[in-house]
């Protein structure tokens, strides 16, 4: 048999049928649903008199526009309340399993799926959200879909898909202490650009990736979409199996053994050919920060924003000028020491317990700088409780961070947590587009450690230097 990549194996295993032009009808094992991209899909089903084909493979949880304070009280914003109520009506009418806002398991869909054992190796996982690539960390084929496709999966439990090209990013060597998966992800995007993997399914490999825990792997795959990839994925291994074992929806007993035996067959064959290959020297990666309005605009923390005057290509220079202008940065300005107004630690990129531990490690015994507003928003109610039990919440609140309820929060400014015009934010989220965190807001993407360091210093600083100074 031809040697195959992880992607090929996942794809092949789910082909139900093939259309004359080669498009596959692809079976979907898990469909995660949230309040923002599903109402029109259920509306479509109802209009066509269709039912949900496999409610048992569908799971709904509200996250995008839920408030992160006053949990248990009615949602004040009328339009958010309407979307939440609509989701509740839809899951009831169509019999879809649902985690309500008041349930401790509620949280960001990409945190909840793995936590509940819904995200497992070998599965196809979709959700009406681009960061569904996160679940590829388990060696699953996971990708975001639009609302028409949400409706399509609800009605048929399949999608019409063409095979993507494959790309492997091999991260050689080890990340240095203090350098996280987030930094690695930003370094890769800075290298290949936000369209660098367009049309490709991206597999991350190499020692630096194998050494990551599941949280780090999820961060890496989460950002695959910011490199334009259709999906990001990592071969399942002992780290993956250990994480999945015993989770509520993971297989048990003999099923578990059968599943693990199958999962071990999934990694790319040694001589499988990828359409593209890229190598990254992981040991050379430094803590990263973005300066512009695209995730590819990332530099090491001791680096500087570019100077458009030194860029020969006029189109690129104009883009840089526009981004600097929006971000309120001078050409060539150093990022370190640039003051921040707000800090956001959260989002499906970095709101797991490991991320909160990192933030608390930096914040311990320090104070949030005067005039800085710092939010920590755990990825789920379970992460929140664990952080409280581990004493992390206390460290953070004593340092002056706000400790919130789970949700997407300031990642996208759809709920009350927003930046004001011109405010500069160190954010652990994934998008620094204009207005993403609120109209006129200025977002710098960073790791949890760097965000916490910015909060206590009131400016961007390498967390390692902060520790030297203490």
């Amino acid at each position, binding site marked *: 048999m031809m040697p195959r990549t992880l992607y090929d194996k996942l794809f092949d295993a*789910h082909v*139900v049928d093939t*259309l004359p*032009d080669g*498009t596959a*009808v692809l*079976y979907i*094992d898990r469909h995660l649903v949230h309040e*923002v*991209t599903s*109402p*029109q899909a259920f*509306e479509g089903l109802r209009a*066509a008199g*269709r039912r949900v*084909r496999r409610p048992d493979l569908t799971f709904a949880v509200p996250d995008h*526009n839920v408030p992160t304070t006053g949990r248990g009280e009615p949602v004040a*914003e009328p*339009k*958010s309340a*309407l*979307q939440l109520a*609509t989701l509740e009506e839809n899951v009831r009418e169509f019999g879809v399993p649902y985690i309500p806002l008041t349930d401790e398991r509620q949280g960001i869909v990409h945190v909840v799926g793995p936590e509940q054992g819904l995200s497992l190796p*070998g*599965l196809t996982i979709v959700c*009406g*959200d*681009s960061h569904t690539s996160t679940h590829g960390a388990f060696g699953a084929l996971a990708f*975001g*879909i*639009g*609302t*028409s*496709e949400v*409706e*399509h999966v609800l*009605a*048929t*439990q*399949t999608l*019409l898909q*063409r095979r993507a090209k494959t790309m492997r990013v091999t991260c050689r060597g080890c990340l240095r202490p203090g350098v996280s998966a987030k930094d690695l992800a930003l370094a890769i995007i800075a290298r290949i650009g*936000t*369209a660098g993997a*367009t*049309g490709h399914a991206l597999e991350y490999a190499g020692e630096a990736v194998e050494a990551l825990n599941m949280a780090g792997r999820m961060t890496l795959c989460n950002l695959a979409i910011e490199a*334009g990839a*259709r999906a990001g994925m990592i071969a399942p291994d002992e780290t993956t199996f250990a994480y999945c074992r015993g989770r509520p929806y993971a*297989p048990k007993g003999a*099923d578990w053994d*059968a*599943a693990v035996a*199958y999962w071990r067959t999934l990694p790319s064959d040694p001589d499988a050919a990828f359409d593209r290959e890229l190598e990254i020297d992981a040991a050379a990666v430094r803590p990263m920060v973005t300066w512009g309005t*695209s995730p590819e605009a990332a530099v090491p923390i001791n680096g500087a924003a570019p100077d458009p005057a030194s860029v020969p290509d006029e189109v690129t220079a104009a883009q840089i000028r526009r981004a600097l202008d929006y971000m309120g940065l001078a050409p060539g300005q150093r990022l370190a020491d640039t003051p921040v107004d707000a800090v956001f630690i959260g989002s499906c990129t970095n709101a797991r317990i490991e991320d909160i531990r990192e933030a608390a490690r930096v914040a311990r015994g320090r104070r949030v700088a005067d005039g800085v507003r710092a939010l920590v928003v755990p990825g789920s109610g379970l992460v929140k409780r664990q952080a409280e039990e581990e004493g992390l919440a206390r460290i953070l609140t004593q340092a002056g961070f706000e400790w919130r309820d789970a949700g997407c929060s300031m990642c*996208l*400014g*759809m709920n009350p947590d927003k930046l004001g015009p011109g405010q500069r934010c160190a954010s652990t989220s994934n998008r620094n587009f204009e*207005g*993403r965190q609120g*109209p006129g807001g200025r977002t710098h993407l960073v790791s949890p450690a760097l965000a916490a360091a910015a909060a206590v210093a009131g400016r961007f600083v390498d967390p390692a230097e902060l520790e030297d100074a203490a």
Partner: protein
Amino acid sequence: MTPFTTLTGVAVPLRAANVDTDQIIPARFLKTIKRTGLGRHLFADLRRDPDFVLNRPEYAGAQILIAGENVGCGSSREHASWALIDYGIRCVIAPSFADIFQNNALKNGVLPVALPAAACEALTADAELGPNARLHVDLERQIVVRPNGEAFPFAIDPLRREMLLEGLDDIGVTLRHVPAIEAFEARRPAWGL
């Protein structure tokens, strides 16, 4: 879905690369439970600038949008396509598109046409001449025709082309495969696969 065959109309020149879906429709307008009525929020933030091209009277009623590389990158929100179609845009021309956006557009009857950068530049220059420079898009023949008659051929997935031409929706096509889906489910292990 409304079929797409040919289109002759005014094109809006955007002269920007990486037009992400947050720009096409900012997140605050996603709090809707309907597909219609989003046209008034198309490019809401950029339209606050009175000089923004879409605000200029000569582009009122435009049906075509021309932009730079990587249109529709970022969020998967299908609202971007709904906003375009509700506004009246049926065709987006650019050197390249982000995957999810391209899919969403096709499913909603918005035709994404990828053309080489030089062709896009020529069409942008035409569009900048204003409403008398109408472009002609012919899906059957897979060409975009400039006001001077020059035609640029474009490629499109044959299935997608057929579905657009006939106004067929995906679910209808897939439901023809229910026996195969049932057979797949019968051999799929209970723990997933």
